Every structure is written in structure tokens, then in C-alpha cells.
């Protein structure tokens, strides 16, 4: 910590003396520039994603070939894969850490952290975040959380392995499994740091959006990603603290002998002294965050894809207001649906009925969003940039995964589907694949803004098609395993007669997963190569309307030289009839586009309408 403070002073000294030369450390490491912090989040997120994907390949190998030895694995994993076979305990650790990393570090920090940081100041017209220092801290807390999480692989007893939801007593009683020892402690510490990071980020995003919009940028002129980031940040601020509360109680139970989550426990014949707690309490606290969390994951992706689809369909997003209201609806409803994760956990069945109703209501705003995407594509003029491909992929995954949510949200159907592969298939499509596609769409779309270079489009095409096909091949068949009653987190399917018929499907799915993982090499190569050797990006490569494309390609601290541009119109004036090109940036006043103005544009401003009418009388429309 002292080093942070030290360099921070250093940086201020420079600023005070009016130097613009930054040191290596203040520019690349302890940077307070939102664009650099966004890149830090992105690259850390990508690294964590690669690690988590590697873990998933390891356990997929175990599932596909449970009877085979892979001596190669022992080389890497040592005692956790003695004789080249992953041990059951380590299998559970792999599953747990894969889930934790993907949900929190990749799809929360890597997605929200990257694009909120990059786009909020650039799209609302601010010079930086409301609190750049807090922003820097947010990244470094996230970084520490990642390091601590990964360090649990170097602990004797292995990483936490009670599933990413770490239900007690399994995760609290050290005797229950090796992963509940030191590994679990590290998991909890990492989570606390992560929540601190995401709170600092969230508070920053909300205050920046509310206070620092440029002239003319009222709330209803904000691009949809900003709305999504804004509501996501609010969700995070309200729900993450509840997780910390739960985590603190768990730390107490684990280390100080309290009984918040424990009661009446006998390990073998060893009677534990804890009395009066309830394991269900943790589930309530966890899912009070956990469910909003899945919307924290998907909403930024939806926001990004709204922007990308509109830009590349060369059409205004259909139903801008409906898009915003559905986001608000999802935000509010997501707080009262957490119980649908607990239908069969022993929660009072009466609550099950209530949560089923709220859960199925949340499908309505999601359906509205889907239909609006389709309506945006209708009669568009679609340019298939890599970003657009990924955005279309997102819509497809969102539909496929969203529909299976209607099964799981129904308490009576959940009885037989709970904790089976059906659930795995559902959330990997709707939350995993859809959100990661949103993230990739964002990377391809805003790469020129981040690095001033273009990514190679053809490698992007290849990356999209391989990933899109492979993701469906991996997750679609898994639904059927779930419908046959195969539970998730099983180390092998060999002990059950009825599961044996799925072994060949497992082999197929594993090959598809390996295929998908290798396809990411196309992205990684493209990404890192283009940072250094990519073609220089033009000012506005996608011919988009939003403010970030008016800032100079060469990054400067403060984003715009001179004055921040003023905003006159909403961000989706694409292909407006009467205008000579198919886009009108937000910075163009209506006085310069007299030929394309619509009565609706003036929002009831009588004077402006009068001017427009006079102009139209003077310049009658030519028939063409």
C-alpha cells in the first residue's frame, strides 16, 4: 500500500509543476486515467478468462475419459493428478474456481470494469471519472483478489472446492473436504477484496454518470451502454454488501467458533458444538447478491450489444425508451427473485410459490429486449463487422438460454431439474456465452478507441464462427443430460447404469470444448498482435454517432483537447431520411440537419418547430 501512496504523490508532484510527461509507473501501473484502467481491467480479465477456460478443459477431460490416464496431467498438477488422473477433490476445486473466476473476475470485473471505465467518461463527455484515485484503487483491489484466488492453487490442501456458491456447512467445516481449509479462507479474503473493488468502481460509475455529463447530455440522450452500466452499478452497490455480510459471518463461523450457519452437525461420530444456526441463512444472503449478480453480468453485455447492433444495422435501436425501461424493470425485479435458487433447499414451500411468480415476471422485460433487437435488425442495412457478429450471437444465446429459464423458474419443474445438467446448460448459455459474446463484441467494437489500432477483421470472423458453433455444440446437448436426471458436479458417470449412455455425449462435448478453447487463440493472437502492429485506426471507423468517436485517436489525459463537445441529439440517428449520410453524430445540432429533422425531434419546443416549418416551406422536398 505504501508504494501506491508514494507513487501517487509522485504523480501529483508532476501535475502540480505542470509537467505532462508521465513516468512509466504512473502511466501504465498506478494509472488514474480511466482509459488505462479500462485496459488493465480488460487484460487482467482476459488472462483470468484463459485460466478459467483451461480449468474447464481439465475437468471436461476427466468427464469424457474417466477411466483413462493422462500422465501429462501429473507433470502439471502433481499430487492432484497422481498417475495422470484428476482426483475427486481436485475435480471439485476445478469446478469451483472455474465458476468463481468466470462469474466474478471475468464477467463482472472484466466486463463491467473494462467497459464502464472506458465508455462512461467518453460517451457522456467527461474528462475522467468522478474519482480517478478511487478508480485506480478499484483496479488494484481487483488485482489483489485475483492473485489471492490463484494463490490458493499453491496451498497444500488445495483451493476452495465447495462449488462457487460455497454452501455451508461443507465450506465451513474443515473436516468436510480438504478445500474447506486454507483454500476456503483465501477464497473468502479474495471475495472481500473483490467486493471492495466492485463497490469503489460502482460508486464511481454512478457519481460520474449523474454529475459529469456534458452540456446537452440529458439522461434520455445517453447511449444504451451507459444506461446499462449505470443500472448495473446500482445493482452492485445495493447487493454486494450483502455478500460481504454473509462472508463475514462465514469467517466468524470458520475461525471464531460462532454458529451462524451451523447447527446439529455430526462429522462421522464427532459431534460439533455449534447450535442454533441455519445453513439456509447463507443461501439467502448469498443469493440476495447472487441473483442480481447474474444481471450484473448480463446487463452490460446487453447494453453493449444494443449499441453495436444499432451502429452496424445502420438503424436506430428500436424502442429506445422500452429498452431503458426494461433495464430498469430487470434491475428492480432482480432483487426479489433470489429464492428461485432455493426452491428445493428446504426453504418454506410457501416462499417457493412467491418467488416463482416474481421470477417469471422478470422474463417479460427480457422478452421485450429480444423483440426490440429483432425489430432493430428488420429492414436494416447490416454490416457484419466482427463486433456485429458477436452481438447477433449474443441475441441467439440470450434467447436459447433465456427460454430454459422459464422451466427452471417454475418451482414445480425445478424439483426435477434443480442441480442437474439442465441448469448448467441454461446458465452457460444465457449468462456465460451471452455475456462473453457481449464482452467480445465490445472488445472488437471499441478496440480502435482503446488502442488506436484496428483488429484484423478476418481473424475476427474466424473467431466468431468457430466459437459460436462450438458453444452450441458444448451446451445444447447438456440440456438432455439434465432432463435425464444427471446431477451436476459429478466426478464421473461410471457408477450409475443410467448415466452410461451419456458417456459418448461427454466425449463429444469435451472435444467441442477443446475446439472452442483453441478457437480463442485466434482472438488472443489478434488482440495482442494488433495492439502493437495493427493498422492505425481512423477517427470513426464504424461511422457511429456517440461521443467517444469525436475524441482524438491518440489518447490524451482529459480525453478532448479544448472544450468538451456539446450534445444536441440522441445517439441513434442512423439512416435518417433526408440526410445525405446514414449517420448523424450527437454533436451535430439540428440547425445543420434541417433536411432530416422530424417534428418529434424538438420535444415540444414551439420555437424550434416554427423555425423548422418555415425552413420546410422555403425548401420544398424534391420528389426523387
Amino acid at each position: 500500500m505504501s508504494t501506491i501512496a508514494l507513487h501517487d504523490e509522485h504523480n501529483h508532484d508532476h501535475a502540480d509543476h505542470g509537467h505532462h510527461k508521465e513516468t512509466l509507473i504512473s502511466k501504465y501501473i498506478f494509472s488514474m486515467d480511466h482509459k488505462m484502467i479500462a485496459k488493465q481491467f480488460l487484460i487482467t480479465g482476459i488472462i483470468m478468462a484463459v485460466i478459467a477456460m483451461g480449468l474447464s478443459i481439465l475437468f471436461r477431460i476427466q468427464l469424457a475419459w474417466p477411466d483413462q490416464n493422462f500422465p501429462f496431467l501429473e507433470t502439471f498438477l502433481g499430487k492432484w493428478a497422481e498417475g495422470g488422473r484428476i482426483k475427486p477433490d481436485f475435480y471439485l476445486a476445478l469446478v469451483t474456481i472455474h465458476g468463481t473466476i468466470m462469474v466474478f473476475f471475468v464477467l463482472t470485473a472484466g466486463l463491467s470494469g473494462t467497459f464502464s471505465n472506458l465508455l462512461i467518461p467518453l460517451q457522456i463527455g467527461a474528462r475522467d471519472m468522478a474519482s480517478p484515485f478511487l478508480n485506480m484503487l478499484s483496479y488494484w483491489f481487483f488485482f489483489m483478489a485475483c492473485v489471492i484466488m490463484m494463490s490458493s492453487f499453491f496451498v497444500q490442501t488445495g483451493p476452495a472446492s465447495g462449488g462457487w456458491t460455497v454452501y455451508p456447512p461443507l465450506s465451513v467445516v474443515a473436516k468436510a473436504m480438504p478445500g474447506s481449509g486454507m483454500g476456503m479462507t483465501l477464497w473468502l479474503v479474495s471475495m472481500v477484496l473483490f467486493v471492495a473493488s466492485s463497490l469503489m468502481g460502482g460508486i464511481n460509475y454512478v457519481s460520474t454518470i449523474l454529475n459529469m455529463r456534458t452540456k446537452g447530455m440529458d439522461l434520455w440522450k445517453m447511449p444504451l451502454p451507459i444506461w446499462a452500466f449505470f443500472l448495473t452499478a446500482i445493482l452492485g452497490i445495493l447487493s454486494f454488501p450483502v455478500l460481504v455480510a454473509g462472508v463475514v459471518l462465514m469467517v466468524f463461523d470458520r475461525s471464531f467458533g460462532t454458529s451462524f450457519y451451523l447447527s446439529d452437525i455430526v462429522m462421522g461420530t464427532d459431534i460439533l458444538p455449534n447450535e442454533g444456526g441455519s445453513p439456509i441463512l447463507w443461501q439467502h444472503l448469498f443469493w440476495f447478491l447472487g441473483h442480481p449478480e447474474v444481471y450484473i453480468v448480463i446487463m452490460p453485455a446487453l447494453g453493449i450489444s444494443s449499441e453495436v447492433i444499432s451502429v452496424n444495422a445502420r438503424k436506430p435501436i428500436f424502442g429506445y425508451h422500452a429498452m431503458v425501461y426494461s433495464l430498469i424493470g430487470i434491475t428492480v425485479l432482480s432483487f426479489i427473485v433470489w429464492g428461485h435458487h432455493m426452491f428445493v433447499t428446504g426453504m418454506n414451500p410457501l416462499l417457493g410459490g412467491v418467488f416463482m411468480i416474481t421470477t417469471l415476471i422478470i422474463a417479460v422485460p427480457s422478452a421485450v429486449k429480444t423483440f426490440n433487437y429483432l425489430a432493430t435488425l428488420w429492414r436494416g442495412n447490416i454490416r457484419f463487422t466482427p463486433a456485429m457478429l458477436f452481438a447477433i450471437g449474443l441475441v441467439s444465446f440470450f434467447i436459447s438460454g433465456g427460454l430454459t429459464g422459464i422451466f427452471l423458474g417454475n418451482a414445480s419443474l425445478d424439483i426435477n431439474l434443480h442441480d442437474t445438467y439442465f441448469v448448467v446448460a441454461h446458465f452457460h448459455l444465457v449468462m456465460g456465452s451471452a455475456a462473453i459474446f457481449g464482452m467480445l463484441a465490445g472488445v472488437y467494437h471499441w478496440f480502435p478507441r482503446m488502442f488506436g489500432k484496428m483488429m484484423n477483421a478476418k481473424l475476427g470472423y474466424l473467431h466468431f464462427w468457430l466459437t459460436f458453433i462450438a458453444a452450441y455444440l458444448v451446451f445444447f446437448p447438456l440440456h438432455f443430460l439434465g432432463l435425464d436426471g444427471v446431477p451436476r458436479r459429478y466426478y464421473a458417470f461410471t457408477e450409475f447404469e443410467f448415466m452410461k449412455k451419456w458417456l459418448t455425449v461427454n466425449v463429444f462435448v469435451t472435444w467441442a470444448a477443446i475446439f472452442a478453447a483453441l478457437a480463442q487463440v485466434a482472438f488472443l493472437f489478434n488482440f495482442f498482435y494488433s495492439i502493437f502492429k495493427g493498422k492505425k485506426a481512423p477517427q470513426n471507423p464504424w461511422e457511429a454517432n456517440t461521443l467517444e468517436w469525436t475524441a482524438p485517436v491518440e489518447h490524451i489525459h482529459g480525453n478532448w483537447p479544448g472544450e468538451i463537445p456539446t450534445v444536441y441529439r440522441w445517439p441513434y440517428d442512423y439512416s435518417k431520411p433526408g440526410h445525405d449520410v446514414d449517420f448523424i453524430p450527437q454533436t451535430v445540432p439540428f440547425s445543420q440537419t434541417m433536411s432530416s429533422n422530424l417534428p418529434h425531434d424538438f420535444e415540444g419546443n414551439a420555437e424550434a418547430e416554427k423555425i423548422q416549418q418555415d425552413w420546410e416551406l422555403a425548401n420544398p422536398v424534391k420528389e426523387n
Partner: protein
Amino acid sequence: MSLRKFITNKTTAALAVLLTVFANTSAFAQEAAAGAAAAPKVDMGEVYKSVIFYILIFLAVCLFIAIIGKSIKVYELSREAQGKPVGINWNRVHASLFALFLVLGLYGVYWEYTVHGSMLLPDAASEHGKKIDEMFNLTLIITTIVFILTHILLFGFAYIYKYSAKRKAYYYPHNNTIEKIWTIVPALVLTVLVLMGFLTWRSIFFKVEDPNNKPLQIEVTSEQFKWSIRYPGADGIVGKKNYKLTTSSNTLGIDFKDLNSRDDEMADEMVIPVGKPVKLILNSKDVIHSFYMPHFRVQLNTVPGMQTIFEFTPTKTTRQMQEETNDPNFKFLFFCAKICGSGHWNMQKDVRVVSEAEYKTWIAEQKTYLNDDLRKQFNLPVAPAPAKPAAEGDSSATDSAAVKGNQMALNK
């Protein structure tokens, strides 16, 4: 263009490096193998060779892709040099690929529904399970229709409205009527599903007990990584437990001072009579497990410190199921569905549904939990009384003594 060059040069360089590495590692591996002749079971040299083989294949594929990329570039440049329009219209390529994906995808979905769809659980073997199945089928039909229609629209639009320089997109920012329709229609459909789901759920968990057909109580206790089943015995009531009484001989911590406990019977498998309601009393000793019995559409977590209760009525015997599924080895079973530790993946017990008569003969053969050892512990008379009703009188007499002894044991 430089990118292409880079790939080819770098890939070839990487190939060369890997070849040398390959040579080195195999040499090292041979050395190591020679050094430690006793220890190694696997010849790691072979392993490394196969790993490097796969890496080489992957690199060869990369090289192949790079060559294709390069030739596309050359083609495009030559078109440009000749002054012809751009070589490949990528928008058209992607549009066609989306159309192709739609067709192949729909076929794939059909294939999955028919092939994998026929490998699923047989029809529910319980009363409430039938309702769940109906609910499931209805939801499946609705969602499949939506799934197919939206995907046809999504990929269809992608195909039809691909970019053309001649066209301008249709400026269509909103239409309140359409938006209202597609808010209200899903809301109505979901209301129907919610109502049906709610009623089904209520009929499962809020049953009115039929006094003429009282459910059979069966207690199931989970622990890492096994299940214990307790039948209520002649009195039809499963007796009390107290986890503090757990010992190596009384693993469930059954409280034998409770009269209802004394005739409780243990069983290796769950045998239940067909057509009679069964009330499962679920409980866990250590961590959370989940009692999952998919053929009957039954699942409920077992939670330490509390009882969870699930009532169901089996409608088919095991024999009937064997005939229906054409599988003479078919058996019902229950297993754990909630992550509970390293043995989670193999924590199962058989279930047998039989006729009332078969059940009666089977249950008569089961042993009670109370054995001579436990009788001594609980200060109960050791002489086992085969005629239970007769023993009832004196057992209540000894009961108070047993309670005292027990309380003393508890207070220490």
C-alpha cells in the same frame, strides 16, 4: 499484409523451435528413464511425444489458416490492382453463413429432440410427477415455438438485410402499439404458466391428508457419503432423534427413550408399496445433501439441523417399469444432487416399488435399530420381546428409568 507475413514467418520459426525442444525433451526423458529405472511406471518420453504431436498438429492448422488468409489477401489485392470491385463481399458471406447456420441448426435441434430426447427419463412413476410432466410438456411446446420463430427471424433478418451500398436502412425508432403487444403477449403466456405452476406446486407441498390413507413415514438421513433409511415399525411413527446421542453404535443418534423409536427398523434399500402415499422425512448429519429420486420427480435437500418433508405416491411397481421400458435391469434409485464432497458422485441407494403384500412380507424381515448393545446403553431390558404389544406395558415402566439415565448421560 504484414500480419500475414508475421504469422507465416513466426509459425515456421515456432515449428523449428518446437522441433528442437521435442528432440531435447525426448533426450532428457530417455536420460531420466535410464536414471530412475525403478520408479517410473509411465514412459514420459512417449507422453511428451504425443503432447508435442498434438501441438504440432495445432500449429500446422494455424499455418494452414495463415496461408488461406494470405491467399485471400493476395486475391483481394490483385482485384484492387486490376481496378475491379473488392474481391470478397464479406457481408454476403456472413449473411449466407447465418442462413446456413439457421438451416443446419434447426436440423440439429430436431436431431437432438428426437435422438437425445428419446434417451430421457421414462414417464413419471408418481402421482404428482404426472402433473409435473404435463407442465413440462406444455412449457416445452411454448418455448420451442418461440425458440424456432425468434431464431428464424434473427438469422432470417441477418440474411435478408445484409449491407448494400445502394440501400439505406429504414428509419424506424419506435412503435408503441407493437411494443405494447409484445409486452402484453409474453406477460399473458407467462401468467398462464405461473398459475399452472403455482397450482401444481401447491398440490405437491400443501397436501390435505386423507385419514383413510395415511402416508407411510420413512426417514432418510444423509451423511458423507451414504444414506440411512429408517422405517417407523408397527406404530407407524418414526421416533425422535437427538444428534447429541450419536455414537459409533447409534450412528443416527436415535433417542430410544422415545417409545416410538424402539420399533423403528433399518433397511438397506427403500421398498415402498405401490399406490400408497409415502412421507419422506429428510435430514442430514453433516453437510447439505440433496435427496434426488428423478423417476418419481422428487427432490429435496437434506439439511443438518432441520427436517424437510416430501410426500409422494408411487404409481408403478418396479416390475411394471421393467416391462414398460423393456429393460429387465431397470431399477428405481435415489442419489445425491447437491455437492457434498469427494464422494458426491457415488452416493446412491436402490428403491423398489412393490405390491402391498410383497411390502408386508419384506418389512416383517427387517431388523430394528434397537439392538442389545443399545438396550444396555439406554438401560432397557436386554431380553428382546418378540411379542411387542405385551412388552409395551413393562417398557413404559422402565422408560422413566431410561429417561433418567439418559438425562444423566446428557448432563454428565
